[in-house]
């Protein structure tokens, strides 16, 4: 999967260091979704995915940031959200992406759920170096 879509709008960055920042990350996702004129269902899906990924960035990644931008390919517009942290990384990606598995006390549905909620999903992680998750939601 390619996530190197050309940017349309400027890249907006939100630091994720506190639980208030998770709310702000969600707001940034919603603003972009509205600007992109995603349907109400897709807006809600993107915002929910953002909420999950932002919380993972905070809780497991030890904090990081969200970069969001409007993107465009030949056929459609979209919103791209990239969550980055310099945390411990994910040793077993398949396990982390399986429904119901949590290393903590969560439901273990955030990461796998975010993948289902987004159209494109890209996860890069290095143990000891950090994790970057990129999602895109396209207009149909």
């Amino acid at each position, binding site marked *: 999967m390619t996530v190197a879509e050309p940017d349309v709008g400027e890249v907006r960055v939100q630091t994720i260091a506190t639980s208030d920042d998770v*709310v702000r990350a969600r707001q940034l996702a919603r603003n972009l979704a509205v600007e992109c004129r995603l349907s109400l269902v897709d807006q809600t899906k993107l915002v929910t995915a953002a909420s999950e990924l932002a919380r993972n960035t905070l809780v497991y990644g030890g904090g990081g940031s969200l970069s969001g931008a409007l993107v465009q390919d030949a056929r459609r517009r979209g919103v791209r959200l990239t969550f980055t942290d310099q945390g411990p990384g994910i040793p077993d990606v398949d396990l982390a992406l399986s429904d119901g598995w949590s290393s903590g006390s*969560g439901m273990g549905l955030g990461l*796998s759920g975010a993948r289902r*909620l987004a159209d494109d999903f890209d996860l890069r992680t290095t143990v000891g170096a950090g994790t970057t998750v990129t999602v895109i939601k396209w207009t149909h």
Partner: protein
Amino acid sequence: MEGGSGPGKNEVAVKLGSSDHLLGLMTTRRDELAAAWIEVVSQTLAGRISRAELDQELHELYAALVEALRAGGLDASGEHYTEVRALLAELSRNRARQGFRPAETAVSLFALKRGLERLLDDGSADDVAAYLALSRLTDELGMFTVDSFAASREQIISSQAEELLELSTPVVKLWDGVIGVPLVGTLDSARTQVVMEKLLQELVDTGSAHAIIDITGVPAVDTEVAQHLLKTVVAARLMGAECIVSGIRPQIAQTIVALGIEFGDIVTKATLADALRHALRRSAQRAALSVGDAA
């Protein structure tokens, strides 16, 4: 500066650490200095605090400063300044509560220097030493004032946030034996927790058998919110009560499904009215059952 018959340059340096002349000035020219100080402060506050209030506040502070200077010299963080610091903390608290800016608060102290300036027209070495001593004092106390102002602001903001949290989560009695809580706005973990605890408490207090959680006003339900909801439903069940979740809009329903959250055997209804109807039917059934038991 004219040297004249006054002390030379070296003597000024010696006197820098001394507060004697400052104390002398503040005692002998008390009325003049205090009046000049209050004058400057009242100009900057532009009538937002009554003159009488300001008079009292600053006179008290002035008296405390003189006392502290006499006993503790320029050691503003020392024990002799306890009273001064307490008064400044109180002043900061009041200013914060009244909505003043930090600069407007600190000026109450710094203006003392402007007051002193007015008295020092001849600029003798003694006067310079006094001015520098006061400068040093107000610098240190000014920092303290700004710090306590910031602490007060933070306290005010966090207590307002708590109040808002309480205000925005009303648990209402919908019917005999049925309570409801409409959730509105973004649900963070703290808020969801408050709502849920309140709901459970209200179940106990009213002896209700049914609780309706209406999420019509919630823009998104993620795993965290869902987990709080599920925990509440289970806790209510342990208390012998039934929770109904209403107001699940189409976009929320689709998101919950995509996330993979299962609500299991929790009763969900499209609208609050449907939920209330369900609750009433159930309590009618219970009533019929208990009548049957009694017969």
